[in-house]
């Protein structure tokens, strides 16, 4: 049966997240961007909601909410500020993956501290850029006598310098499938983990947007012991793929929250700004852009939710290639929608959209930066505007 009414829990989560976004994240957006960090009190306040780094109660966490609740939380935070939301959401990915597919020992070793230690940062090194799909990753994770060698390069690794736990996703060529290695600060002391592209002067990641997530390119060449292979050597690779596909849904949720807010802001502005004797919302050239935004955002959000539910319920017998492909389409449609909607939001504000007195320029940058992370040109071919 088709049903879109939210559960009480989902509605409550959406409400509390909207509130914290408006009262905390939105006012702190500029500060977070300038400091390349999420202000501590905001990080802690969001962490305490237990939504972005969810851990089961038996490991001392607040429980793992359903997948729609998680997406609502991420989208809602991004509605407040995409940079802060991205930092917090990306940091929560390892807890979700370990909770889903870690060995019992890994869950015991990591989840209790991830559940309570709000000052710790985690990171998942997945993307490699150049529009490659997950099946085309070039990072390799191979068995050696001393353990498992992780070798390759990743881009957009959050908290590249400071993560207390970094998951690296690669391919095991001998097995022909994905594996994930866990890297701790101890593993990084021997120069096997090199952070690239750091700004020498500020020591910060310099980029178009998402400064608070401190994303950098990182190269790996190190050996970790077998107990740091996520799920152990015998993990069913389909479980890992499925978990990663679910983690890839963080980006579309962030994109949609950003674009949703941008379109709302532009719609408010269009009702106040008067030209030719009426509010500019009365002109179809303006109002149709925002009407298109609403259609696209709804369609993208339903696709995201539908896919999340499908992946959550899927068994190890599911068609992996098809699932990868569906996720890529979902991510790339959200990116196309969000970049277009945020672009149009700047357009609606005109000159005022181009100066930093209004937040739409920030959302324009954020959507573009999010849109490059998990890009696949085969899902949304280039199209000229006219």
């Amino acid at each position: 049966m088709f049903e879109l009414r939210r559960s009480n829990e989902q509605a409550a989560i959406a409400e509390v997240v909207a509130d914290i976004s408006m009262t905390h994240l939105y006012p702190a957006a500029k500060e977070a961007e300038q400091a390349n960090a999420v202000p501590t009190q905001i990080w802690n306040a969001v962490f305490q909601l237990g939504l972005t780094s969810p851990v089961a109660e038996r490991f001392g966490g607040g429980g793992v909410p359903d997948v729609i609740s998680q997406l609502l939380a991420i989208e809602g935070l991004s509605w407040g500020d995409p940079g802060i939301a991205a930092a917090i959401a990306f940091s929560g990915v390892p807890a979700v993956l370990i909770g889903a597919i870690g060995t019992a020992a890994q869950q015991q070793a990591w989840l209790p501290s991830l559940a309570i230690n709000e000052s710790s940062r985690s990171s998942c090194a997945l993307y490699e850029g150049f529009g490659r799909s997950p099946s085309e990753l070039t990072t390799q994770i191979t068995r050696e006598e001393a353990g498992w060698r992780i070798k390759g390069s990743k881009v957009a690794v959050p908290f590249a310098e400071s993560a207390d736990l970094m998951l690296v996703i690669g391919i095991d060529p001998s097995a022909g499938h994905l594996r994930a290695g866990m890297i701790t600060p101890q593993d990084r002391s021997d120069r096997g983990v090199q952070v690239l592209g750091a700004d020498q002067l500020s020591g910060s990641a310099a980029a178009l947007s998402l400064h608070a997530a401190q994303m950098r390119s990182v190269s790996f060449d190190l050996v970790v012991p077998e107990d740091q292979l996520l799920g152990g050597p015998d993990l069913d690779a389909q479980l890992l793929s499925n978990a990663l596909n679910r983690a890839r849904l963080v980006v579309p949720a962030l994109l949609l929250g950003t674009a949703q807010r941008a379109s709302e802001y532009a719609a408010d502005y269009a009702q106040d700004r008067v030209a030719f004797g009426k509010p500019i919302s009365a002109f179809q050239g303006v109002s149709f852009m925002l009407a298109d935004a609403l259609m696209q955002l709804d369609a993208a959000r339903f696709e995201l939710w539908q896919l999340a539910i499908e992946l959550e319920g899927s068994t190890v017998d599911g068609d992996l290639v098809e699932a990868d492909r569906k996720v890529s389409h979902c991510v790339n449609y959200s990116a196309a929608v969000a970049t277009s909607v945020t672009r149009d939001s700047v357009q609606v504000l005109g000159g005022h959209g181009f100066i930093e007195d209004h937040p739409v320029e920030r959302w324009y940058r954020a959507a573009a930066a999010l849109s490059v992370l998990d890009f696949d040109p085969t899902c949304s071919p280039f199209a000229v505007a006219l």
Partner: protein
Amino acid sequence: MTISFSLSPELVEYGTAIQEWATSQARPYARQADTDHAPPSNWRDIVAACPVPLDGDRRSGRVPPTFDDGYWIRSLVTGEALAYGDIWVWGILGEGIGHLVVKAMGTASQIERWHDPIAQGHGVAAFGLTEPHFGSDTSQVATTATRDGDVWILNGTKMYCTYGAVADYVVVFASTDLSLGPAAIRAFIVEPGASGFRVGKANESKLGIRSWVTSELVFDECVIPVENQLGYIAADDDDGFGGGKTLSGRGGALGALASNKPNMAALGIGLAQASIDLTSGLLHEQRLGFAPRRWSLIEDELDQMNRALERGRNMNFRAQWLQDTDQIHKTEASLSKGYSPPTAERIIRRCMQLLGPEGTSTELLLEKWYRDIKIIDIFEGSGQIQRVIISRSLMGRDAARN
């Protein structure tokens, strides 16, 4: 006459020389100009090193060559070549558009005094039309001009005035009687040092084109001579409103914008072309990392982007060819500026996506150009306003009125 889309070999050579200089000598300062919100302090030396004379190259005294292609066609070629290096170069070499209003509305002596020196590359003329509460709807001019004997007294605030804080003069649009609506809008020359004229904000904090001077100008009981009213003719001056041509201030403003719009579209094409070329080079270095199907798709996309820019160039050339040959070009200017800028934006975004997160890092200039280019579809008439102008040319004043 044979239809032709080609430029003279001389102009092609001139454009190529500028582009090579802009890329090798000016682009290395692009990041700094963005960070500092100002052009490099040694910009005069950089410009002096250009192998061919440029417009607005004041210090060198070199005169740009004339080409059979025409003045405005040359300006398109120059603009694209400069923007290809980086947007900061045009920001320093552009002469503004205020003098174009002088040319449209001024008397012979005013044209000689205020238009000709700028057109010959000796100065910068700012344009003060937009105010905080309006942009496209120029009937909302709230800055007032009050006649008091031999002077006009201006009161109001102008925004987004390119070069406002540094120009040799600003053309200010002000109303002589707010109750008369748009008909009472006239244009006035205000020079630095005029009593009551001050720079409210020298440069806005902007998404892009940060090294361009984008100023807020304040006129607080600003006093200027009656001769500074464009079109002023002393012999006709009997009613206290200033004698002169009947061309309205708005007409002059919009005429100046129509002259320049295709050039702005050309800047966007320069940024997009630079992005394609830079991205293409980086992708070719990664050639072996791509599956054949994916590589062939990427090559197709780069081809599509290049073809799209070529279409945009033709639209620009058509509009400026009309202007060079003294034909009506108002609608064609809008067709040109409405057409290519949104595609140029998409091209830069696509280039960043093709490269991945390194494409949005400050190691490359793509992220900067993606910020710079957004203004192209906004200033000198947003894409929406171009469509209004185009629709009205097709279907009359009632078109796009809703």
